[in-house]
């Protein structure tokens, strides 16, 4: 059940009245969130419901055990077991086959791979719950006694399958204290949902109609088509993921459980540090707090800082999926961050934005291409640019228009949805008109669901 489907509309039409009928009964409301979230997840694949529940129970009790253990060594041992179990499950489902195949290629030994399906959202909910146990270990959080509130935090349906990756210390207070109905906040949520649908259904899905055929038929299309597909993919993935996040944040606002901002106009970044403070903020801050800083951060000298940065970005790439392409994507971002620290001078604003965007766009090639060979082939074609034939001129014109609208929105109407005024109403109506006029209504899934 995806946000841009009719089934989700029915789901919300059932959930919404019940949720507000229970507005004075917090515990029952949390039960409803939990049941609705499990139903939402079961609609994807009920077979992995048990895995999700096992993850919830496991970390809930690990949290209590860590908190109750008096001996720091025992605390550490419990945490180690918790981390190994969480990462172990994630590894098994997501990376087992990749490592087996890589091992086979390297050693020429034949170990059998397994026919494993990837449980949707596993990378996200594993990180939700892992932050809970680590925060308890670091004395940043006391374990909650309210299992339902905890389970609702991990499984909260707007953020369950593609984030943002929430922290228990931010979310649990919102689930354990009374939520008040606020018409302005709900209206702001509605505006943000409208903007999210515009990004996803209009910009991202329309771009997909051009980009997907190009990436699937690289040998049949012109160099110019490949170049345009590479550029537009930057906007596709941004609109797809930030569109999903806007819908999730908007739903959170309507239900009185606000989620953390995940995107802040990333393509206006002047360097890569800034880019990672604006792109998938919940993941980059998670990696910073739970990986980069524990590795030593910038406290152990320049060389070690660079190494830590590189390892963090490499693992950040691997988090997205089990493939060399993602590893290279992460490694390239790590390299950019190191080079940026080595080169101490600052470029003028617009030039810096263009260079950062250009490199980010080139790096997305590894993220999008199906194989490493395809990625290298694309790079070769776009730099040669021999064949400039363009068959889908009208689609390309539409894409320029839509990305123009998107950039105008990000430049002129930043977070317009935070205000409840006439301007917001006019923008929302215009966005809805654009949805009717340009949306593909294809019910395309979100790119980040595969992670």
């Amino acid at each position, binding site marked *: 059940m995806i946000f841009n489907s009719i089934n989700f509309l029915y789901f919300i039409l059932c959930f919404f009245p019940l949720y507000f009928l229970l507005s004075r009964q917090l515990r029952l409301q949390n039960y409803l969130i939990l049941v609705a979230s499990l139903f939402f997840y079961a609609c994807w694949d009920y077979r992995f419901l048990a895995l999700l529940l096992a993850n919830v129970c496991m970390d809930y009790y690990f949290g209590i055990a860590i908190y109750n253990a008096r001996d720091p060594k025992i605390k550490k041992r419990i945490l180690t077991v918790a981390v190994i179990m969480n990462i172990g499950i994630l590894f098994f489902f997501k990376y087992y086959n990749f490592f087996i195949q890589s091992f086979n290629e390297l050693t020429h030994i034949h170990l059998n791979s397994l026919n494993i399906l990837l449980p949707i959202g596993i990378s996200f909910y594993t990180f939700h719950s892992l932050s809970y146990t680590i925060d308890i270990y670091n004395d940043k959080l006391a374990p909650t006694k309210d299992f339902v509130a905890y389970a609702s935090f991990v499984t909260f349906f707007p953020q369950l399958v593609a984030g943002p990756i929430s922290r228990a210390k931010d979310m649990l207070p919102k689930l354990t204290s009374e939520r008040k109905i606020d018409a302005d906040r709900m209206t702001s949520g509605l505006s943000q949902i409208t903007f999210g649908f515009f990004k996803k259904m209009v910009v991202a899905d329309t771009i997909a109609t051009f980009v997907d055929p190009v990436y699937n038929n690289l040998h049949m299309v012109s160099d110019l088509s490949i170049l345009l597909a590479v550029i537009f993919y930057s906007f596709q993935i941004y609109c797809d993921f930030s569109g999903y996040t806007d819908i999730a944040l908007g739903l959170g606002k309507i239900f009185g459980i606000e989620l953390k901002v995940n995107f802040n106009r990333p393509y206006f970044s002047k360097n890569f540090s800034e880019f990672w403070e604006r792109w998938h903020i919940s993941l980059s801050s998670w990696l910073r707090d739970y990986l980069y800083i524990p590795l030593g951060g910038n406290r152990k000298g320049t060389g070690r800082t660079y190494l830590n940065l590189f390892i963090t970005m490499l693992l950040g790439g691997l988090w997205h999926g089990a493939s060399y392409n993602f590893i290279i994507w992460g490694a390239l971002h790590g390299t950019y961050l190191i080079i940026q620290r080595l080169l101490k001078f600052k470029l003028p604003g617009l030039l810096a934005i263009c260079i950062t965007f250009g490199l980010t766009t080139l790096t997305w090639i590894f993220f999008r291409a199906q194989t490493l060979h395809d990625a290298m082939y694309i790079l070769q074609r776009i730099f040669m640019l021999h064949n400039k034939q363009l068959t889908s001129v009208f689609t390309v*014109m539409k894409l320029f228009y839509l990305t123009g609208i998107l950039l105008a929105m990000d430049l002129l109407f930043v977070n317009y949805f935070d205000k409840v005024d006439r301007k917001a109403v006019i923008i929302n109506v215009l966005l*809805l008109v654009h949805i009717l*006029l340009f*949306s593909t209504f294809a019910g395309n899934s979100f790119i980040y669901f595969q992670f």
Partner: protein
Amino acid sequence: MSLFIKRLCILLALAMIVQVGVYFAFKTLLDHRSQFRLSRYFRQPRHQHYILGNSRAVNAVNEQYATQSKHTDLINLGFNGMNYQTISALISDINTKQTNATLFIEITGLLEEKQDDSYAYYMGNSPFLREQYKNTKYAYLHLMRLNNEIFLRNIYYLKKSDADWINKYTISENIIEETRKLAPNDTTMANRPLLIKRMRNIVENCNQYNNKAIFFLAPYYPEYLKKLSQYPPLIDTIQQLHVFDFHDLNTLKIPTTGFSDRIHTNISSSLQITEYLLRL
């Protein structure tokens, strides 16, 4: 809560009103001014010759050459992905408006099964197209009728006509190489009974109005044609029936430079094809 519901209803009501207004504003302007072929047709539907079919028909027949050099009254109504349902609706529309005309129909469009909603754009212009989209979302959400490439083309052709559109590209070495590597394709043109049935329907429809239906198969790039295993039996089936005026233009021996890709011809061969069809 009630305030939020009220705001939600106002937003939806405003959006509904605006979408109807935007639709009629665009449609009125484009119907009167656009020089896109289908809009030209609905403004002035009476012609001597009509071309119908998908993109292969568009690329095969050069409207400008036919009208200016050959002084023939011809309109090429072919469009990307045009399927049987749309071709049939357009033929019915032509039949009610013109008699003693010749309709040239490229047959691969008759095998197009993919539902293409682009023609909802013209549901207000033709009762036959309106019939196709009744009880669909297009009947209720007017603006969605413009959610297609036909709308963009209508805007693009506000200042100039698409009658002089030509395909000037030549098939690339990459495509030639990939075509050589292709596995035989036994699905294209496979449903011969359906094609024959549809051709019969078209002939019957045209005969009622004294219009003549001529079917043709636009050329394929020869290397690609070799991969279409259903091509020879299809031609045999049609020719053995002796009921259709059918012309396989693959017999024209178009050189490699006459193709823009493996299924479309370009400007150089379109002159040859147009001339051939006009001689019929």
